[in-house]
């Protein structure tokens, strides 16, 4: 036990300041008030986008300190974060998950595949980007996008809207 405590003590606080502030959203979205619950849906990715979500979801980036949380059910979510090109076999599952997410909600396409099918575009087994299946509210480009980029985007989404 003392080794664990010692290690925690020596490690200190790992959380880094947010690297780059994200540009303002094109379409401001007023669903969050300083907190954002996200449900991730893999619609057929190569799994590197998931690796970056795991990298994001720990103390170095610490999204929870910004009020951003990954949740286990679409019922609890403000936003769906969709990765991968939408495969035909996942099309219905994606629609059903979106249907189970209460309104108002945001749909975010994360990674080049989710944006336009990426390297898998044109395959018989791929419907294309997320927008081919459900309306998309925001995009995070990259293959895969780095955790800093994802965080900057999500932070912008989680910010309370300025009300003039």
């Amino acid at each position, binding site marked *: 036990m003392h*080794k664990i405590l010692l*290690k*925690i003590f020596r490690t200190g606080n790992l959380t880094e300041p947010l690297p780059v502030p994200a540009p303002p959203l094109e379409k401001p979205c007023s669903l969050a008030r300083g907190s954002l619950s996200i449900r*991730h849906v893999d619609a*057929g990715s*190569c799994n590197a986008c998931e*690796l970056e979500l795991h990298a994001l979801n*720990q103390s170095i980036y610490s999204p929870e300190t910004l009020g951003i949380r990954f949740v286990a059910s679409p019922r609890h979510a403000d936003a769906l974060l969709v990765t*991968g090109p939408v*495969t035909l076999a996942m099309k219905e599952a994606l629609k059903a998950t979106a249907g189970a997410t209460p309104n108002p909600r945001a749909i975010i396409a994360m990674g080049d595949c989710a944006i336009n099918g990426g390297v898998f575009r044109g395959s018989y087994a791929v419907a294309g980007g997320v927008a081919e299946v459900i309306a998309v509210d925001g995009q995070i480009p990259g293959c895969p996008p780095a955790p800093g980029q994802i965080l900057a985007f999500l932070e912008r989404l989680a910010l309370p809207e300025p009300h003039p």
Partner: protein
Amino acid sequence: MNPTEYGPGPEPCFTPGSPTKFVVPCSRVTPDSSADYLSGVNRVLNRGGRLVSLWGSWADERAPVLFSAFSDAEGLLLFRLGISALERTFPSIAFLFPLANRLERAVRDLYGWDPEGLPDPRPWLDHGLWTRPPMVPPGVSPAERPVREDSFSEDYRFVRVEGEGVHEIPVGPVHAGIIEPGHFRFQVVGEKVLRMEERFGFTHKGVRSLFRNRPLGEAISLAGRISGDSTVAYQTAFSDAVESATGSVPPLRARWIRSILLERERIANHLGDLGALGNDAGFGFGQIQFGRLKEEFLRTNQQMFGHRYLMDAVIPGGVFRDLGPGEITVLRKECSRVKEGVLELKTIYDEHGGLQDRFSGTGWLDPMLAGRWGLGGVVGRASGQMYDLRHTHPVPPYDKVRVPVSISRRGDVAARVQVRFQEIRHSLSFLDSVLESMPDGSFFNPLEESFSGSEGIGWVEGWRGEVLCWVRLGTGLTVLDAHCHDPSWILWPALEQTIPGNLVADFPLINKSFNLSYSGHDL
């Protein structure tokens, strides 16, 4: 073993003059008939060979071909069975190698060729969404998408357990965590699992069709995105295949750098897994500490190779860029830092009673079964199997700097944790020696282009297990057809065997200890 025993025409799988010392030896036999094929495969089984992969190809106008790859002490053995374009059947070998079951079903779904004698009539990659097998013969225009537009919910026949108090739990394809989509069907009584069955194909992206008639540059980047966590292994196997097909020799320094990338990929994934395994057993501390070590690794990757996961760092002919002396020093320093960190955490893991209690005896994979099925990778080695291509078929630099096989005979989650710890240690020592003794020279040799219509194969020990890529090239370095095989094909069925008798709540932990790829499997 003498390949003549297996059938007619044993010949090297590569273009004559190929740099065979850089790739695992491979012989190809061409059985004349189904009966010859079956007796050849039977002989492979009797001589202790194991199944590596099985796939179809319909890349040129000639009759379709079924490939199956096996391994023995000598290297790879490739069967190339011509299929009658009229009858479109091939003999199933699942009664000899049970792991061929899903591979043959996948061939049936993709090409419409029937595996004769396969008792399992269920589809595997096809979810009832295709109007015809999607891999059309060359010359036939794939213009019309073979897809049902109406949504169709498939009725897959899971094997059910009946009896008092038995019920069924369906899980997926969308899971509660950040993981890939797949479906698991549990038959349980109380908290105890009686049977678990997998249903995959949700991430099927038609990669085989995307490879067809692709310029090499696009094909290699596609290969690196079949399973993102193994991008180096895939791109190395794919490059080996292209090099052996064209008779090109990558410079020695490039082989050295590739091995550095491969081991960095292994270490990064193992670090992530060890953290996640701690977390799944309720020890969040592990996740944070290992995550931090992994993040440091990824950032160095980004700095030196321009990508956190090393995508597109390996290219046919060599590697994308060289390492300077300053960078080599940085990498070596990082290795010793990570070594220290991992050692410290290993003591904490080993001494943590609660953690060991969750790991020990959980998810036991019988070493006898692992032996019978010839399982490699982390999973196979944690159940006593001595398969590691870096050790059994070392290509440069693994022939100079030897990597011992990390092995455990316990077969439980604890064993898979221990194998990962050992492998990190061995890889770090390997990296240190390799970085110290890098040969001089260039990091890239242009490919030989003076050839037409040749095949090549590459076989690499990735972090999860053996990755195999086969390519068929046409003129102008166009990829006519290619097949990449993920070790998950062979290991997913082993997971099914591991679950019965465990608690439902232990499934995530056991699944994590395997950490198999869905995308690499579904392709």
